[in-house]
């Protein structure tokens, strides 16, 4: 008996095989008595299953359902629904190493910020600038790669789309990391003689965090999460080396990059705007090509 043909027999009976497989099974059955006996066994099971009791009268589609079709949720309901979806993805952070690791990293950066500010004014912004954006980018790269990811079932349970799910996770992850960064900046501002206001200090790392995360989102979805994580590490690591070399008086480039560490609303606005455009484009692409993202040939 051919093992592969044996597995196809149930689908030969319910006529769900494609033409090639059907012809192959049909041809095999004419020459294989054990498989014909197997087929008879499956046919008995198929008849019994199809004849199972339970064909009750079907009710009409409920008037309540029809009444709900034209119902539009209020702004409050929509906000509550979005908040619920984002909160439902907390398992993404809580069940992994992510939150404690990032908390430690950003806490350490805040501590270093407090210590180093006594050395030079510019140093106070360096630790959080160095850690928060890359922490956010690495998290972003891993938005949809964990084992036992329940997202498939959530998507199947409609009306949650893949784009909605990914951006809910993005909001949660960036919100958590942003909050940790904010606490770090707050400590630095409260415990030391801060040269800038709290919001200026936040802006120094928040802009790069948004832009680097947006770039990582795009590369993670278009190429591969591992590529995105590697590219973000390379890009950010290279930039930090250049900045630190310049800070210590041994610049590697003839052009100064220290303006990246100076608070400025124009710089922050530009970074946030570019990040927003990248995410908007990603949302539209995901909404129109969900299968391209899920399909193995489209991802890896």
């Amino acid at each position, binding site marked *: 008996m051919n093992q592969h043909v044996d*597995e196809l027999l*149930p*689908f030969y*009976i*319910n*006529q*769900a*095989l*494609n033409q090639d497989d059907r012809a192959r099974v049909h041809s095999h059955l004419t020459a294989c008595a054990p498989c014909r006996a197997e087929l008879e*066994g*499956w046919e*008995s*099971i*198929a008849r*019994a*299953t*199809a*004849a*199972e009791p*339970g*064909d*009750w009268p*079907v*009710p009409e*589609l*409920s008037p*309540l*359902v*029809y009444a*709900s*079709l034209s119902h539009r949720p209020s702004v409050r309901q929509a906000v509550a629904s979005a908040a619920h979806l984002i909160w439902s993805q907390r398992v993404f952070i809580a069940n992994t190493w992510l939150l404690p690791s990032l908390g430690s990293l950003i806490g350490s950066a805040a501590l270093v910020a407090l210590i180093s500010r006594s050395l030079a004014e510019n140093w106070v912004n360096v630790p959080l600038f160095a850690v928060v954006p890359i922490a956010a980018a690495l998290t972003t790269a891993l938005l*949809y*790669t964990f*084992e*036992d*990811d*329940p*997202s*498939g*079932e959530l998507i*199947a*349970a*409609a*009306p949650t*789309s893949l784009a909605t799910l990914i951006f809910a996770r993005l909001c949660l992850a960036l919100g958590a990391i942003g909050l940790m960064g904010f606490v770090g900046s707050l400590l630095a501002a409260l415990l030391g003689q801060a040269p800038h206001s709290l919001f200026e200090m936040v802006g120094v790392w928040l802009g790069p965090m948004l832009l680097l995360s947006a770039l990582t989102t795009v590369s993670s979805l278009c190429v591969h999460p591992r590529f995105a994580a590697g590219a973000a590490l390379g890009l950010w690591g290279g930039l930090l080396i250049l900045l630190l070399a310049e800070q210590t008086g041994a610049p590697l480039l003839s052009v100064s990059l220290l303006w990246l560490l100076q608070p400025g609303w124009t710089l922050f606005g530009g970074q946030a705007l570019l990040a927003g455009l990248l995410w908007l484009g990603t949302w539209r692409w995901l*909404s129109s090509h*969900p*299968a391209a993202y*899920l*399909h*193995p040939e489209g*991802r890896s």
Partner: protein
Amino acid sequence: MRNYITGVLHITQNHAADADPDWRLMQGIAAQDQAALGALYDKHASGLLHYLSGRLGDHRLAEEVLQDTMLAIWQSARRFRGQCQVRTWLLTIARRRAINAYHRQIAPTSRDEAFDGHEQQTAEQQGAPGRYLDLNAALLALPEAQRETLELVFYHGLSLGETALVLQVAPGTVKSRLHRAKARLRELMDAGE
């Protein structure tokens, strides 16, 4: 999880949307046509109700979940892109809605294993070998996951990939469940001979 989603999607790619007789109805629903929803309901309600009743074991609750499923279909029809047959998509949504209802109303403290996937039964639930002379009765003694798989294949006529998509398992799991169901039925009916 991603692996079986991608695998199943790969298997079901050959279902071109325009070859699906329900595709036009889905387009109508996506365009907010209530008559199209009614037509889809008329066509598939019986099969969905049979499926839901079998899973939930409560006909009244199954009727409620069926209405809930139709509302979910209306809300998400715009996102249906014909990557699987409409019938498969309806069953997938109905199954998730049934699991939600099961947790909410029947076994609020249990997890999915009680509803799906579990193929182990207590000694009391297991039929004694050779006890059944009637195949229909023996079918009822099968573990829920095996009976559900048989129903999707032989009652609803789904392909291997479609069955895997509805059950959210790998195609290989569908094959092994079918194989174990057949072996178990044989055991239940023939052991005394």
